[in-house]
């Protein structure tokens, strides 16, 4: 759920004011307050929010919980740019709404303030608004409703994942290959590649343009072309994408084989074929000798040597159709 990006225009002013009011008011309607922590409305924070507001998009996300939810209710949200975020959790129960406590946590750390709670009919709403500017604000945000049981809804914020290849790429010495890393609908600030030799990370020397060429026709993918492969180029290649809100990486395994690798099975099979041919021809020569035929044992069909004065001569005149019965001539 995203608000449409773009300039806010005339609707802009009310929201930050509302935000400030809410922040200033603290957390309305909860029973178990600790000592009221000052709302994070230090001057610089307010200014920061105002300053950043106009060019950030708004991410709105909802979760619904009931008193009977016994499966973890989660939502994964992929973010790559700083945004304003609005998270809403609603809780439906048949019991008394007043006995329900709502709290928010970021990564198990209790959030003191910045959220509001509202009750309408049988549904309790709680909303938390904040801004994600860098990787420190990424993580898991959870809303908790305490009745008899505790119900939890979690929003997981992550940077886009990279996809390399799950199977190793197999090449031969002297070939070139292209390793591709991509992510869905993303535009990282920067891409880098590393080569893992054993456990040592070796950055690639991109200056060697006759060996490595990094290109990326689209913003959402990067291609590493490696030429004149040798056996030292084997191993895992890691592609690294840097976003404003964090980093993401994945690896591709490269195997460089020499011709000896398939050559061994090839020679084995070829030897087997030679053996087969030898066996077949030897068997034939053996059976020929056994029957003592005056055959020349040559492989070429000698049509002219057909001896029609053979003792079987008479049956030779049977015509060559399907031997169904005896013939007329």
């Amino acid at each position, binding site marked *: 759920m995203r608000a449409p990006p773009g300039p806010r225009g005339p609707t802009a002013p009310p929201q930050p004011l509302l935000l400030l009011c809410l922040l200033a008011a603290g957390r309305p309607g909860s029973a178990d307050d600790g000592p009221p922590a000052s709302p994070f409305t230090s001057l610089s924070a307010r200014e920061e929010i105002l300053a950043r507001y106009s060019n950030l998009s708004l991410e709105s996300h909802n979760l619904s919980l009931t008193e009977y939810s016994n499966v973890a209710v989660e939502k994964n949200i992929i973010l790559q740019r700083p945004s304003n975020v609005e998270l809403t959790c609603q809780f439906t129960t048949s019991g008394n709404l007043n006995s329900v406590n709502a709290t928010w946590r970021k990564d198990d750390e209790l959030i003191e303030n910045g959220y509001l709670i509202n009750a309408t009919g049988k549904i309790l709403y709680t909303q938390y608004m904040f801004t994600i500017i860098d990787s420190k604000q990424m993580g898991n945000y959870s809303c908790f409703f305490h009745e008899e049981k505790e119900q939890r809804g979690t929003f997981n914020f992550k940077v886009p994942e990279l996809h390399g290849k799950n199977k190793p790429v197999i090449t031969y010495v002297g070939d070139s290959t292209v390793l591709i890393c991509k992510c869905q609908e993303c535009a990282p600030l920067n891409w880098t590649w590393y080569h893992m030799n054993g456990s040592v990370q070796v950055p690639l020397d991109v200056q060697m343009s006759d060996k490595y060429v990094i290109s990326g026709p689209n913003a959402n993918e990067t291609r590493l072309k490696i030429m004149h492969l040798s056996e030292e180029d084997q191993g895992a290649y890691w592609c690294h994408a840097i976003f404003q809100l964090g980093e993401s990486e994945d690896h591709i395994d490269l195997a460089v084989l020499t011709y000896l*690798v398939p050559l061994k099975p090839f020679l084995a099979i070829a030897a087997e074929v030679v053996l087969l041919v030898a066996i077949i021809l030897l068997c034939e020569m053996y059976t020929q000798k056994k029957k003592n035929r005056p055959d020349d044992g040559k492989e070429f069909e000698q049509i002219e040597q057909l001896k029609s004065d053979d003792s079987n001569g008479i049956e030779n005149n049977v015509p*060559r159709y399907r031997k169904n019965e005896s013939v007329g001539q």
Partner: protein
Amino acid sequence: MARGSEPPDGGWGWMVVLSAFFQSALVFGVLRSFSVFFVEFVAVFGEPAARVSWIASIGIAVQQFGSPVGSVLSTKFGPRPVVMAGGVLAALGMLLASFATSLTHLYLSIGLLSGSGWALTFTPTLACLSRYFSRLRSLAMGLALTGVGLSSFAFAPLFQWLLSHYAWRGTLLLVSAISLHLVACGALLRPLSLTEDPAAGGPGAQLASLLHHGPFLRYTVALTLINTGYFIPYVHLVAHLRDLDWDPLPAAFLLSVIAVSDLVGRVVSGWLGDVVPGPVARLLVLWTTLTGVSLALFPVAQAPTALVALAVAYGFTSGALTPVAFSMLPELVGTGRIYCGLGLVQMVESIGGLLGAPLSGYLRDVTGNYTASFVVAGAFLLAGSGVLITLPHFFCVSAPTPKPQDLVTEALDPQGLGED
């Protein structure tokens, strides 16, 4: 061992069936499974799909047009050395292909070299097979041709597995080793001398006599017509199913169903061809007509059950017509001229095969769906069976089959030999 002059109808003949089985597997199974390499070649050479598919097309074209060469050489030297040489050529082509650095390299090594190797193996083997059998000829043909279908099942996953372990270069090297078995198959083709052989004469004389042989020419025309329509479902069925909103997985399953019924059809037809008295041509007409009808009905069927039933029928009948088509030839021209005959037929009917798929594609582009393509394919098949009806002795109902010996002596009379 048949040193005499009768088709043995068994004995060593069954080893020849085995050899033919493996050969059709190694030639056509490899060709059909080549699509596995397709994706790799497109990625590695950066060429468009159309140019990569030329590799298989050149291979098939060389194999078919080169068939007469294989036939002529077999008539002169016997099938064994020719097939063994063909096996070496086919394997050599694949071996050289594993070192390829460009697509042209692959055209020449796989297309030209391996294609020539295949041309020297397939036709002589089938011809040799028909010389070894007369009473059980259709069954032997049917059993041997099942190699094509079974190998497609086996080779595609095998090649895929090899690709994931050895990449395309290593896989081509190993396919070359596998193709070397063609040499072993060739070694099984023991020479057989039959009575008609001296009467048939040398290859040049045989070719000349065949080209003057009316029934043979009509048979060739019929097979060409049949070939034009035969391949169309294989090429266009999946696309037609997609047009009908089928998902890819059930569509692929339907193709497997067709492949299985094709296998069954081949064996049943082979058996039937030997059991039923009378000219085999009648069975060919039966199967061809049924195939044509089932093809023409394809556009009419909309419901899934009807389509599956039609697919089974098409698979069965089209598989059934193949062994009978081959085993009919010796009846027409005699086993003495079988090598040259088969070579000529293969070469001419390949024209039909090459024309069929593009014609069907063109019809689809013009009309917007596959109805016209399927109906035209069915029409070609029916036309082929129509031509077959005109063959001599077609309507003989009496048990003795027509005497191909007469046909042979008819054609050979000009040569002045009065043997019978």
